[in-house]
């Protein structure tokens, strides 16, 4: 049996007297799309930040593909094959779309010195173009990322997260602020990518429709703890979840 793509064990985080995350443990199987949902203030973002090393957890451990990663810097996590997107727009606005995507891959190729003396594009132009086409942004290749629409920037953000060929991608509210057409497109692309590459996804999302139709398994957080876990259908009919969302 291989190690799970992501294993979270007994993560806790307190801010002052508030327990934002309380002893949370779960595993994510390789190749699955896991949704992490919960009402506002349920500790989703804090948990995400603890997993990604942005916040030091008070206790517990995080393993990626069997490797202990708690306390790692974000750039090291990226080298371990963990990609992520951000809740806010997170592209490099004054660089071209192509440069954005090349940057996302270049640190995973060659040594520090080869990146100074080697090719300006680190030999990644073809790969980057493929990734840009995958998200159907090819007509925008040479535009500045900052001039793209909101939805296009979200797609670009995802393209960047995938560029290094990560085994695990954490998506932080990918649907936030994206219009319906773009949303359908994004979901379809994520599912296709998952099917083609077997990449594991963890998705934090507010948009229930989006999560329910994208994910194969869903974990529900409330007040810092897991209150339910199961397939979308099971979650939909779970009384505890309904209570939590209706402010029970």
């Amino acid at each position: 049996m291989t190690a799970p793509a992501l294993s979270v064990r007994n993560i806790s985080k307190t801010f002052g007297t508030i327990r934002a995350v309380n002893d949370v443990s779960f595993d994510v199987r390789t190749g699955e799309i896991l949704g992490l949902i919960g009402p506002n203030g349920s500790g989703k973002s804090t948990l995400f930040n603890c997993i990604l090393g942005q916040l030091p957890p008070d206790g517990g451990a995080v393993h990626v593909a069997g490797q202990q990663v708690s306390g790692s810097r974000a750039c090291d996590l990226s080298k371990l094959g963990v990609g992520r997107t951000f809740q806010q727009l997170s592209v490099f606005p004054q660089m071209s779309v192509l440069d954005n995507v090349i940057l996302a891959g270049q640190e995973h190729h060659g040594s520090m010195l080869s990146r100074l003396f080697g090719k300006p594009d680190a030999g990644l132009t073809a790969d980057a173009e493929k990734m840009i086409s995958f998200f159907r942004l090819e007509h925008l290749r040479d535009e500045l990322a900052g001039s793209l629409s909101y939805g296009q920037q979200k797609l670009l953000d995802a393209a960047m997260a995938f560029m290094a060929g990560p085994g695990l991608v954490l998506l932080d509210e990918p649907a936030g602020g994206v219009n319906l057409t773009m949303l359908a497109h994004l979901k379809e692309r994520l599912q296709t990518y998952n099917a083609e590459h077997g990449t594991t996804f963890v998705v934090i999302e507010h948009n229930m429709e989006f999560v329910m139709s994208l994910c194969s398994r869903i974990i529900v957080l409330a007040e810092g703890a897991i209150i339910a876990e199961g397939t979308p259908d099971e979650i939909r009919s779970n009384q505890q979840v309904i209570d939590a969302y209706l402010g029970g």
Partner: protein
Amino acid sequence: MTRLNKRPALLLFLLVLAILAPLGHGNYIIYVLTSWLIFSIAAMGLNLTLGYAGQISLAQASFMAIGAYTTAIMTLAGWHWLIAAPVGMVLCFLVGLVLGYPALRVKGHFLAFVTLAFNTLVFLVLRNEDWLTGGSYGLSSMPRPDFYLFKTLKQLPFYYFTLAVTVVAALVLWGIVRSPWGRAFKALRENPVRAESLGVDTRRITLLAFAIGSAYAGLAGALVSPLVQYIDPGSFGLSQSLRILLMVVVGGSGFFFGPFVGAAVVILLPEMLRFTAGYYLIIYSALVIVMLAYVPNGLIGIGTRLRERFWPQHRARGDLAKGAQLK
């Protein structure tokens, strides 16, 4: 796409202009032009640190001092400039690494403060260690580089020598800026958190930007030494560092050619404002504040903005057209 074909022509034109500029002028004008080139090199280095990687360094003058004193001491001891100058640059690079490491472990404005302190420290060492630096009297009569067939003793040949060095320095920087390193520098300036999550070791890349920028100051210092043939601690004080910083900002930080424009303004403005006598610095500093309020992108930024207004159809390459939105 016509634009890309125009660019080499424009650069060639500027280069020819730089070659013709000193002809028929007296030694003083040639001297001013030479120091414009030298300060352009120092400002180019700081532009990498500030404009591309988004870090304030206030020690550019003290790195110039390290380059200048190293070159002076070595050439006075009989070494050739071609050996002395690289030694000075490597020294600056290493000192930059050592200085930047602690500062960049902590975020925020720490590099500014540490470099500020460093500038003063270097000044004190230069003034107090007479045995090495000649103390407040400084060092003098450094030889100018001699290339057998091409001697730079006279002002005009020295100008061409400096021009050649400047062109090489600019080409190397151009290479760095468009390499993956350059892309990482820009990413760092625009969104360090995102860059880090994509595997960019932001700490290391910032440190490198700072050290390379410092090495450029070292090169500028190595040229100052034979140009003025007299160096003393006073020429490398904090105010000189501020001057170089303002060159970068006035020219347009993050624009490749910003430093040349900025250095020209800072070197030539005193000549143009000579009629204002002592009020020059007052007017100048007030202009900088006004400029930062209305056009934070500097003079090249104004140029780009005007061009986009009147010729909106052509879009220059992103990395050239857009400077740093300093944040």
